[in-house]
């Protein structure tokens, strides 16, 4: 793999992205709007609520579309281009839809010394994902390598959506994935 191709989720076609932007249903209505207002009270600037607001978008929609970026920009008094600049800096905001179960496997050196590559291979094979960053044909799984998850003493840690699983071995993969329907 080239350095320029490291990490991340593979992009769908551009047409899909534009369609998603045009169809955007507002995220910040009702309870979510009040939650955002409560968040804004914690900071002296509206811009500081940007990361939390983007998290709220992703929790609700599963990813952050161009339409959602424009909505957040409007609410916080920023430009859509600025918001996109921030979204693209951080690895955890999905700029494209991902599988129902988003699996991140730590492969940084300490985990690498404890067999993380074999865990990646087992997860790729058993999830039906053809390569890192792609989604399985049934839409259930997207698998990526992630840099240090900060649980190096419990190699190999993986994340399945928001859940941390420690000490994963290739032998445990089939029972872990089997539970995810």
């Amino acid at each position, binding site marked *: 793999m080239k350095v320029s191709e490291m990490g991340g989720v593979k992009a769908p076609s551009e047409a899909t992205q534009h369609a998603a932007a045009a169809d955007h249903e507002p995220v910040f209505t009702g309870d979510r709007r009040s939650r955002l207002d409560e968040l804004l009270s914690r900071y002296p600037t509206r811009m500081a609520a940007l990361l939390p607001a983007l998290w709220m978008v992703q929790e609700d929609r599963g990813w952050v579309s161009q339409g959602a970026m424009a909505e957040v920009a409007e609410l916080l008094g920023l430009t859509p281009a600025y918001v996109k600049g921030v979204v693209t800096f951080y*690895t955890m905001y999905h700029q494209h839809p991902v599988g129902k179960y988003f699996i991140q496997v730590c492969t940084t050196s300490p985990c690498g010394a404890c067999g993380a590559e074999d865990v990646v291979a087992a997860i790729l094979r058993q999830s039906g994902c053809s390569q890192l960053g792609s989604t399985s044909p049934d839409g259930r799984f997207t698998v990526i390598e992630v840099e240090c998850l900060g649980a190096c*003493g419990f190699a190999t840690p993986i994340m399945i959506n928001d859940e941390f699983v420690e000490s994963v071995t290739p032998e445990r993969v089939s029972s872990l994935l089997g539970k995810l329907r």
Partner: protein
Amino acid sequence: MGFPYPSHRRETPVLSQHFGDAEARALDGWKKRGGYRALEQALGMEPAAIVATIKESGLRGRGGAGFPTGMKWGFMKPGDGKPHYLCVNADESEPGTFKDREIMRWTPHALIEGTAIGAYAIGAEIAYIYIRGEFTEPIRVMDQAVRDAYAAGILGANAMGTGKRVDVHIHKGAGAYICGEETALMNSLEGRRGNPRIKPPFPAVAGLFGKPTTINNVETLAAVPHILTNGAEWYKKFCLSNPKSTGTKLFSVCGNIARPGNYEVVLGFPFKDFLYDLCGGPPPGRTFKACIPGGSSVPIQSMAEAEATLMDYEGFVAQGSMLGSGGVILFDDSQCMVKHIGRLARFYAHESCAQCTQCREGTAWVTRILERIEGGGGTIGDLDVLLELSENMTGKTICVLSDSCAAPIVSGIQKFRDEFMAHITGKGCPLRASAAA
């Protein structure tokens, strides 16, 4: 405590004494264990007296740089009419380090208490705890603990009934190693890309939202309540070697070792005993080959150096490395150092914010060379190019990410040159070749 193992008799559990104890997570359980008495005491003291106590204790920053905490707090000038902020750096992402995660998972109120004391001492009405986004469980635990502390009147406009305001908010990161750099953390909190800022101005002058700010690591703040309760003299007695290194320290241990986990020892503890006695030595049938003692950004130690080290800020430097964040990574004789150094370089290439040319270009360039050598396509000249690049990546950028990438490369070529040469002359990895045979 070597959680999930029971505490070893040679450990000195202060911060880790309640790891694994679910009751200590809850507010009632924490209070039963003496929690929030130090905050109550602090709110009755003059802020300057708290700063003086922390100075006297010798506590140094546990995030990596080891800067004296009391001195850092002393840079803040409460009462100058400006807002002041405390940022808690819980963006733990240095490969090999996983101690702050355990502090937050098991003793969230220890961090909240230390944070509240720190905020009061520096005149900050608001403290933000910036936790990396991947730490979903610590975020859940900390969120609940903050809510409970507000509901009990410990935090808020009338903290512990003293009429003093202490607000603590959790801020969730979104995946970026560089946000553990203090000025990048502040940019990220402000809703920007996590690019480090040029210093000066230093955060104590113009930090978060342009206002005077102090940034402390989780472990540093978690030690503060113990120091206030027991006194600076008590803390200073935790010292086995250099008097400039006081207190207990959590070391995270990982890689090829029998019992990985977190261990808390008094600074100055012999590293050889630590590795073989507390952590159980190498996996069965193996020997240690190399050690990175302070998170992936510090120079690699040969085992001769590691075994001669006394575990404090000066002791690691005397043996060719640094204490850093206390993330100890071990590699055994089955591991290829060229591969691991290349993998570390890839980590830094991925995490570079790309502001500075030396870092953006350098980290990617060294990664390509290292991976080529590992794959069998290396030339003798590659080692000189790597060393020259590393020199140009050191001390020339806004932050030290590119220096951190260079440290394992330079020390790796110095201490494991034979392995590099074997890859170049044998056109591939000798370990892989012998495994295939």
